[in-house]
């Protein structure tokens, strides 16, 4: 089987704008706020349709989080958006105090421009810590959709979910992995391939790369399981552990620092319940730079080839001293 190619779909941020407009029409309690990046986050399309339920407040991330909490106090379902790095880093204390700790605040936090695939604008605009910051907040659901279908479905699911949600969207157009109408639930991973040699757990735009990596590996006789772990928190421990038990070796792949995101969540789960060889694909302990998205993904090792390399390493470690693969 050749390495798969995917039709290029819209950016996940475009799907966010679409979903928000549908939510606006369906639910009068849905409101949205942005902090001067409405054209980029796509919240502006909601603002055009529902001007009485939309505030583009200015460049004030801290104030935006607080305002959202006050609106939630009166029964609204606020969606707040900015670049992932600005919202999660500048708004972190407000998210901690007013959303997570005050635990009844039903605020949906949407960071666009996640990862390094934003390209030329460079590291100041790149959210590579946002998933880690979201995961640090008790009670938060943290989700990284892989394509436009998933992004739209999970945005709509966020409105129905009672409690705080962080959704991470991306800037570039990304491969369409899912068919229209595919169903998603927070905390439920989705299987894209089943094999017994190594399990690749991916999310965001790394899911398509993980699927392509499984094709590369199959040519060498290595059968890989591939899971879309779109929800990093709460982690689908059942699916993660089933894959680890079946394959005895695991690779995580994410467009995020290797620390604090999907890899860390999976490592935590495996360390507690079923230690197996584990390899991490992500941004190493560094910041990226300005270049095209494709150049950056290549340079910083976020490719199908890098995942396949990590999978071979993980599989090769099976059965060596100190690790036990496959068994119970």
């Amino acid at each position, binding site marked *: 089987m050749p390495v798969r190619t995917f039709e290029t779909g819209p950016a996940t941020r475009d799907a966010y704008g679409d979903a928000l407009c549908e939510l606006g029409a369906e639910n009068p309690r849905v409101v949205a706020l942005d902090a001067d990046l409405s054209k980029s986050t796509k919240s502006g399309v909601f603002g055009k349709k529902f001007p*009485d*339920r939309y*505030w583009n*407040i*200015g460049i*004030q991330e*801290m*104030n*935006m*989080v*607080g*305002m*959202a*909490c*006050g*609106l*939630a*106090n*009166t*029964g*609204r379902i*606020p969606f707040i958006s900015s670049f992932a790095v600005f919202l999660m880093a500048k708004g972190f*204390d*407000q998210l*901690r*105090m*007013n959303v997570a*700790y*005050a*635990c*009844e605040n039903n605020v949906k936090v949407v960071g666009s421009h996640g990862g390094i695939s934003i390209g030329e604008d460079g590291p100041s605009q790149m959210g590579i810590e946002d998933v880690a910051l979201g995961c640090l907040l008790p009670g938060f659901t943290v989700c990284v959709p892989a394509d436009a279908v998933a992004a739209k479905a999970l945005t709509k699911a966020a409105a129905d979910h009672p409690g705080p949600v962080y959704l991470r969207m991306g800037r570039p157009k990304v491969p369409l992995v899912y068919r229209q109408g595919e169903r998603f639930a927070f905390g439920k991973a989705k299987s894209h391939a089943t094999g017994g040699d190594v399990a690749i757990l991916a999310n965001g735009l790394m899911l398509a790369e993980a699927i392509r990596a499984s094709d590369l590996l199959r040519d060498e006789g290595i059968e890989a399981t591939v899971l879309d772990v779109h929800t990093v928190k709460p982690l689908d421990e059942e699916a993660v552990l089933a894959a680890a038990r079946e394959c005895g070796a695991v690779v995580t792949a994410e467009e995020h620092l290797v620390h604090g995101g999907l890899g860390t969540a999976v490592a935590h789960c495996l360390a507690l319940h079923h230690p197996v060889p584990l390899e991490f694909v992500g941004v190493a302990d560094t910041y990226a730079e300005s270049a095209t998205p494709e150049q950056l993904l290549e340079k910083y090792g976020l490719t199908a080839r890098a995942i396949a390399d990590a999978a071979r390493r993980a599989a090769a470690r099976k059965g060596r001293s100190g690790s036990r693969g496959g068994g119970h």
Partner: protein
Amino acid sequence: MAAEKRPDPAVRGGDRSVADLEGIARRLRADIITMLEAAGSGHPGGSLSAIDVLTALWFREMRHRPEEPGWPDRDRFVLSKGHAVPALYAVYAEAGYLRRDELPTLRRLGSRLQGHPDRRFLPCLEGNTGSLGQGISIGIGMALGLRMDRSGARVYVMIGDGETDEGQVWEAALWAGAHGPKVDNLCVLTDVNRIQNDTFCDDELPLEPLGEKWRGMGWNVLDVDGHDMGAVVGALEAARACTGRPTQILCRTVKGKGVSFMENQPGFHGVAPTKEQAAKALVEIAAGLGGSGPAGAGLRAGGRS
């Protein structure tokens, strides 16, 4: 007890006289001292400076229902200077949200009366605070939401003058001032007690002219003696009458007001009274003593030995 003659809380501007309010404030001051002494830690200075304003607000101006804390049309109150929460617990006990005998559990394991406001334990609190600078933003969101509901409810946020150092205060001030007609149901009360955690505000980060700053951003600014009950009541009524702009009431207060050895002492920002100090304080409060005269008069760090 005030509980028997509580006016209909759903009717704004109950029938309490200024003298009644002063009596309540005296009782609440004693409650603050008693609970802080029992806790052995906490923030007396900023609780005592704020209590007269809180008394006027909660027992005359605000509409709320202790028997129905989640009443959608309740006036909202966010204590942005969360360290003064003993003052708010005293108010809650007086109003009937808490039993007075719960007050001495402050800061104890299992108590609903956490060291800073925590609505996980006490849901009638609006917002969790204690990280300074955040309350006005929450208040703006409440004000917008209440307007969307066509509710006549108002939103009150109390901040500290030291808290005004925080950048988020100015984000919120700028936004609300620029959108005055949408949030003229918002009133911020600044407890200008002139002392922050480490020292006098003037010696750390001078804030004046505070009124000009808020006025310049589009706020209706009132300036009152925060211990003159009649003046505070009048300012709250004037704030309610103002349309088109949110109101900032600069309440000039004395940190530690009502207890001579706490007044204007930065050392009593975050230190609870000992048993002996508490006993002396309760005597002074009962006698209506307290030596500072007009709020903030002649107060400068340089004047201290």
